[in-house]
């Protein structure tokens, strides 16, 4: 398909702008030495050209609305349309973020401040934590914020020796990267090969006075719930280390487990995973951070407070705050959608969402475990990890299975993660999928397993039903073509 710049026709326009009024001079009042030499070569297209181009691009994509998308760890559930409708309301979308910072400006944005205040309270009740900030702009940004809170806590106490964060070896890559981003060193804690849980004895041997915190995900990336989480917390606290809970998998345990009840100090919630805000080709996300009482005073500013007259206001008077983590109040239009989702489902709906997510995952796991290896054969939560080790002996690897699924009309699961499982295939069906969809997927997976035995080479060629075959990634890295220059 043509690059948009190659569709450009000189003189064509996609917008008409208002004329300047009489008395408003068009002449530039900026000296030539401050101006660019040549215009920016943006494409010249009609509105129809633009719509055709992006419609054609969209036809080369696959979303949750297109079909089953069991991308493990990413929670590709259905995104209710009401959320989009609400986020498009002018009273939210058109609101300037500086308004509540003006004198008496709070009055201008009471509805928006109420959304923030109420959603924070809802997330606190859901997580069992004491306080919440909606500022972090994505899950990984939440991690950075949460790690900053841990750093601030230790700085405030003069715990200068606390420089290390312990992280299970199955964790998301963002965990160690976030800890390092805040100046900590990290050490991986092994996973018990039998239970699939954090090896608590190994942890006991590693934790010491240098340990600033432990970062864990529960259920973990193998989809296994760690029933010893409260003991991990106790162990950490006995060394004045804090425990960070990566809420990436909170969608598995709504109404069944609250991190706050286990003594967790700080956590983030990926709203796009747990509360159905759209993933948007990779963002924008929203990663609120919730804390226990011990960290409340370090939360970023501003905080939204409810005054005695029941109106809402911004509070910047937090002397121990870590400061600004985002320009304003976070990804407002994203978390607004999560708020709508929580209100729609209500208490029982949220509990059922987790129940069905876990049921769908267990059903798939049970139906597939005879055809693929299941390294941790136990009840799973919202996702599970198969291994293509058996198929790999025939020369069919996890990536080949992923590509074969594309040919059969599915978005593939996550492959090669978590790193501790060889030939990993990480499957997360989510609660919104029906039994019929899961059964079709099961059939496809079984058929692929059979073909892996009978005709393995055919799977190495997959996908064949797509507009392109597998891209040459080495050429992409070597060619360094990131910016379209037609004369090249």
């Amino acid at each position, binding site marked *: 398909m043509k690059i948009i710049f190659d569709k450009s026709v000189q003189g064509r326009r996609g917008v008409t702008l208002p004329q300047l009024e009489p008395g408003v001079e068009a002449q530039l009042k900026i000296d030539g030495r401050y101006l660019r030499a040549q215009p920016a070569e*943006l494409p010249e297209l009609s*509105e129809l050209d633009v719509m055709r181009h992006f419609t054609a691009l969209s036809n080369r*994509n696959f979303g949750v609305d297109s079909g089953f998308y069991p991308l493990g760890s990413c929670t590709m559930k259905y995104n209710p349309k009401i959320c989009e409708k609400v986020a498009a309301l002018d009273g939210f979308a058109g609101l300037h973020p500086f308004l509540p910072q003006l004198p008496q400006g709070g009055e201008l*944005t*009471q509805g928006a401040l109420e959304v923030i205040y109420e959603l924070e309270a809802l997330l606190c009740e859901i997580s069992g934590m004491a306080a919440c900030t909606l500022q972090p702009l994505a899950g990984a940004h939440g991690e950075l914020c949460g790690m900053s809170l841990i750093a601030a806590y230790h700085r405030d106490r003069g715990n200068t020796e606390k420089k290390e964060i312990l992280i299970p070896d199955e964790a998301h890559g963002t965990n*160690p990267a976030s800890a390092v981003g805040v*100046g900590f060193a990290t050490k991986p804690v092994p996973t018990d090969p039998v239970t699939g849980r954090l090896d608590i004895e190994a942890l006991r041997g590693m934790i010491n006075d240098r340990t600033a915190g432990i970062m864990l995900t529960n259920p973990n990336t193998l989809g296994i719930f760690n029933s010893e989480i409260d003991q991990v917390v106790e162990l950490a606290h006995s060394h004045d280390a804090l425990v960070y809970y990566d809420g990436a998998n909170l969608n598995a345990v709504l109404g069944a487990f609250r991190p706050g009840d286990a003594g967790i100090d700080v956590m983030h919630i990926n709203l796009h995973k747990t509360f159905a805000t759209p993933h*948007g080709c990779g963002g924008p996300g929203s990663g609120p951070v919730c804390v226990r009482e011990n960290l409340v005073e370090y939360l970023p500013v501003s905080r939204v407070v409810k005054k005695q007259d029941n109106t809402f206001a911004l509070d910047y008077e937090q002397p121990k705050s870590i400061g600004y983590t985002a320009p304003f109040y976070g*990804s407002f239009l994203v978390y607004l959608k999560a708020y709508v989702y929580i209100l729609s489902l209500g208490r029982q709906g949220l509990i059922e969402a987790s129940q069905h997510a876990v049921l769908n995952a267990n059903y798939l796991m049970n139906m597939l475990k005879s055809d693929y290896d299941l390294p941790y054969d136990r009840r799973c939560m919202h996702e599970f990890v198969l291994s293509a080790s058996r198929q790999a002996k025939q020369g069919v690897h996890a990536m080949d299975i992923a590509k074969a699924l594309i040919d059969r009309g599915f978005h593939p699961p996550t492959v090669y993660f978590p790193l501790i499982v060889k030939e990993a295939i990480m499957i997360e069906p989510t609660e919104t999928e029906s039994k019929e*969809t899961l059964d079709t997927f099961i059939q496809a997976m079984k058929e692929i397993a059979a073909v892996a035995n009978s005709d393995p080479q055919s799977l190495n060629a997959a996908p064949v039903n797509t507009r392109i075959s597998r891209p040459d990634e080495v050429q992409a890295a070597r060619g360094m073509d990131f910016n379209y220059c037609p004369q090249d």
Partner: protein
Amino acid sequence: MSYISNTADQSQAMLAACGLSTMEDLFQDIPKRLKPRSFNLPEAMSELEVHSRLKRMAGRNAADLTCFIGGGYYEHFIPAAVDAATMRSEFYTAYTPYQPEISQGTLQAIYEYQSQICRLTGMEVSNASLYDGGTALYEACQMALNTTGREQIIVDGGVNPIYCKILESYMANHAEVKLTKIPAAPGQAQRDRIKAVLCDETAVLVLQNPNFFGTVDDHSDLVEECHKRGVLVIQLVYPIAMALLKTPGEMGVDIAIGEGQSLGIPLSFGGPYLGFLATTKNLVRKMPGRLVGRTVDRNDKECFVLTLQAREQHIRRDKAISNICTNQALCALRAHVYMSLMGREGLRELAGICHARAEFAKARFKQIPGVQVAESAPTFNEFTLRLPKKADAVVGELVGRGIVPGLPLGRFYSEMENCLLVAVTEMRTKAEICKLAENLESVL
């Protein structure tokens, strides 16, 4: 309202297939002592009820004021086609393009977005986006620290104070980093003050054009001075102004960043926004964030993939150059659609309208007794006024009349209590500017 597809019968059949009888059986790994101590949440609502409630809440926000506030976040017109194109669910319900064969739409769009940003800024390579302009500054500074191995960051006084606050928050965790801030004042970058602190330990100088006070500058001389000493330069730019102004590329800047909100993204009460970051080819391996490259498939057909991923957290973990994974893809897509609609001439014309109306406003406000324009240097579409009384008080009075005359600067700089930062975009008509002038006259 529930979005579960399975019926009770289906769920029962699936439980049976797992050898279980109730939903509770699925959660047996969670011991009794870890069961929730409470879960007090409201009962479910229908779509109709939720919509009515949220519409009421939206109605308690004053989104319809005649607003002259900018400060880095601008009200621009958004053509309807931006929403129509980006609201296709093949875009907004997809995730990061890990499977390129069914994600060519996202990948080509990002590649084209990267190219648009390069053309706008005159830089060689752009990433796929960052969260916002402020966090882009933090990421760009990290990039400069890593590249130079030095530890001092100099931030010019014209850099948006909100971005400075974000940078300070993160740098508080890195005691070795020395953050030097040049005192703020309306007008161009204060060369003498910058040169006085620039030294061989300096990793990077951060500049903004037009700066926070609206002043336009050419930083070429500063870039030259920095490069002589092995210092990198970050320049923050306003993308609409880039249609007219000398680009960071033309000035020799190393890392150009900015807030992309103006490119078709609504003000949204603070987010989601769009951070852009563009640099030179020789710094690309130090650049944070996703990057799309053009390549070929097995049949030699042109296609696009995520590339140079060895920089990133999912590969390098604790050795990654940034923890960022999710970016702002849908916001970048909006910006791309917007730039495609505006086009080469449209964006220039738009920038011209903003500038012309701002100049008209500047000239009109100068006639008000006691009001001065704080800078003599050229401005683009924003300028700083010195009022004969506290700007807070003036704003307070005019808001009641449905006009927000600008951003009072005392909130950021205690010595600028009488200063008001006024922004004019194509949304503000001559009539509205005149109405503001008359209202200012009546309260001053």
